[in-house]
């Protein structure tokens, strides 16, 4: 019951607006709802940071054609699967557009890399990459997707595709869809009370009873701490 109270107390008066938790009965994961309006979407920016974000948002780095190439590559790297969306479903091209403006060191390798792809497909198929058939695109990608196996003369493409793969994976796994796919379960109020027993068993590990005896008793976490004169906790 105390745990329940503490989770409740966490909400009352602490987070004015914004965050509401429900259904915190013991053993049940608290559910989180974001009450957000488009006008109020804070993530703790200082006024200077806010200005820079707005400036970057108002600019456009990629041309439409380049953005189309980015989207094709994103979905080659992470296509949709049975119950999972693709990288573009997770909004990864928008993220790559933003990060190119945020980290200008990415701009030349991305723009140049896209052009390198076009140079290759023009040479091979007399077509820009975007216009190639899927099979033609994959033929080229297969040659640059495996760093250990790629021929020397395609190393420039390997470097570019590795960058695209990095940005696509990071964009996807930091999206709502990607985090769900990964199985990350945190970033919410919780009461940590040790590694689940079945996980300990699976790893052949156990807690040292003497160690654990001194750890926090989560049922008493809301009792105000008091010590005796020797520094022993008595509550």
């Amino acid at each position, binding site marked *: 019951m105390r745990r329940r109270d503490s989770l409740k107390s966490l909400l009352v008066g602490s987070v004015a607006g*914004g965050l509401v938790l429900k259904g915190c009965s013991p053993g049940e994961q608290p559910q989180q709802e974001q009450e957000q309006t488009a006008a*109020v979407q804070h993530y703790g920016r200082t006024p200077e940071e806010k200005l820079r974000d707005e400036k970057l948002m108002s600019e456009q780095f990629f041309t439409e054609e380049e953005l189309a190439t980015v989207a094709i590559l994103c979905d080659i790297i992470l296509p949709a699967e049975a119950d999972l969306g693709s990288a573009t479903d997770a909004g990864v091209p928008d993220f790559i557009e933003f990060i190119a403006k*945020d980290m200008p060191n990415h701009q030349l390798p991305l723009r140049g890399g896209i052009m390198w792809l076009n140079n290759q497909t023009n040479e091979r198929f007399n077509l820009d990459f975007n216009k190639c058939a899927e099979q033609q695109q994959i033929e080229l990608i297969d040659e640059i997707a495996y760093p250990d196996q790629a021929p020397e003369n395609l190393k420039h493409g390997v470097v570019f595709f590795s960058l695209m793969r990095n940005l696509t994976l990071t964009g996807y796994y930091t999206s709502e869809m990607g985090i769900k796919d990964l199985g*990350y*379960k*945190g970033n919410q109020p919780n009461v940590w009370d040790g590694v689940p027993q079945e*996980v300990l068993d699976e790893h052949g590990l156990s807690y040292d009873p003497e160690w654990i005896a001194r750890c926090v008793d989560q049922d008493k976490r809301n009792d105000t*701490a008091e010590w005796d004169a020797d*520094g022993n906790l008595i509550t």
Partner: protein
Amino acid sequence: MQIIETPETFDVIVVGSGAGGGMASKILAESGLNVAVVEAGPTFDPKNEEHRTQLKWPWESPRRGANSMRAFGDFDSAYGGWEIDGEPYTRKDGTEFDWFRSRMLGGRTNHWGRISLRFGPKDFKRRDIDGLGDNWPISYQDVAPYYDKVDKLIGVFGTKENFDNEPNGYFLPPPKPRLHELYYIKGATKAGIPVIPSRLSILTKRINQERGTCFYCRQCSRACMQYADFSAGTCLVFPTQRAGHSLKVFTNAMVREVLTNDEGKATGVSYISKDDRKEYSIRAKVVVLAASACSSARILLNSKSSRFSNGLANGSGMVGKYLHDSTGASRGAIVPELFNRKTYNEDGVGGMHVYTPWWLDNKKLDFPRGYHLEIWGGMGMPSYGFGFNASDLNSQFGGTVGGYGSKLREDVKKYYGAMIGISGRGESVAQESNYCEIDPEKVDQYGIPVLRFHYKWTDYERDQAKHMHQTFEQIFEAMGAKVLGDTPGKDKDYGLAAPGRIIHEVGTTRMGDDPSKSVVNKYLQAHEVDNLFVVDGGPFVSQADKNPTWTIMALSWRTSEYIIDQLKKQNI
């Protein structure tokens, strides 16, 4: 809070609102004194929706939490970093020093690791042990009562271990170790290296009705909206103000100098308002500097007058000297038993649940000072950089490197949470030849002459870093982990981090009994100006291998009581 030029005279001005300044302002204001805190940055309260980053998801940042704006990423609660626009610093003779500043109410306490270690009896008397550097003019017994008070006021979890030179305290109970920490315990134990519960100022248990308890989101670096971790704003400044004590905070106020009168007493400070770029002055009976070791030294060196041509309180020439940071080296490893982990919420507290204090005898080693080990790992929340080179590890553990499609999703999940890391944080030997001084040519955007650094590590620190890596490898091997990367050699200073990177810089206004060799006395009172005090890390004679915050707060409390007493006796 709007800054207004005021004719009001304060009893005390405290420059800076971090660990030292926050504590001084609380103790002084609670005693009935009228206190002004002058802070170079804006106000900050993690409970404020516009400031809060806690519990934000990576996608709420368009750069997914990357560090293009803040050194430790978008969600980290430090306004500032090693580089700040318009506030440069320089380096001398090709040497290295990186200076981290956090411009906000609470300073760096809003994002720090909350590792709250007392210095032990030996840490105050290192010269007696190895003949290097100097002893402090005080001993552990002088500080112990204040450590006790800080423990009870702020809250720190840990365990009574009776471990050599790691004093016991008034601890809250620690959280249970996480899976990667159990692997660490297994490896270290096998390697004969001790492990104990860590000591962090995070409330695993309630200490009062004003602050909440930890809800285990692992985000102390974002500052806690429950006030369940220690930040100077949430735990010292706000409660003092709420209790109705006279504590006025001037924000966005960049102190330029300490003002003095003809008798050589401090009369107040002058500051540049960042809001209107005009200069203001505030008067007080006592001035307490807590701007951080290097900022306080900078203010003193810039406080030149005909009487103090060398800078204020600097007759000894020691202001800025003996600058020293903790040493640091880190290594990561992969634990194959952790491949394809079952996922569950293991966020825990914002930092390690276990650690290794210094356990060896330097007399038997080729370097004079110790280090402790910090442990990291687990299934953390992804942010920018997650998934980079996801399949590179396949070259060591089987599978194709690179590629695309479903395979990548499998690679990512295979290695998620399988990495464990150890960082060594050690004590360097303070050197007079490592210092900050005023750059003779450059000013910042407020027209204030900037600092110039001169800093070189010695073999004491390099050999210690070499030993750290030997320890890392020993523990990793014992736990069956595959060490990543090559052992850094001599050409790389054995992996020793550049000075300033560990952000424990101290020593620039060191304390001592001899006014020709030190800046402040054992009460942190300037030898030459009796109503001027320094309560940040500047007065440290030596750093210990402990994080400095707990000692800064204990000493600041002690000095605040001294100031109250001296004012009562009309000595200052």
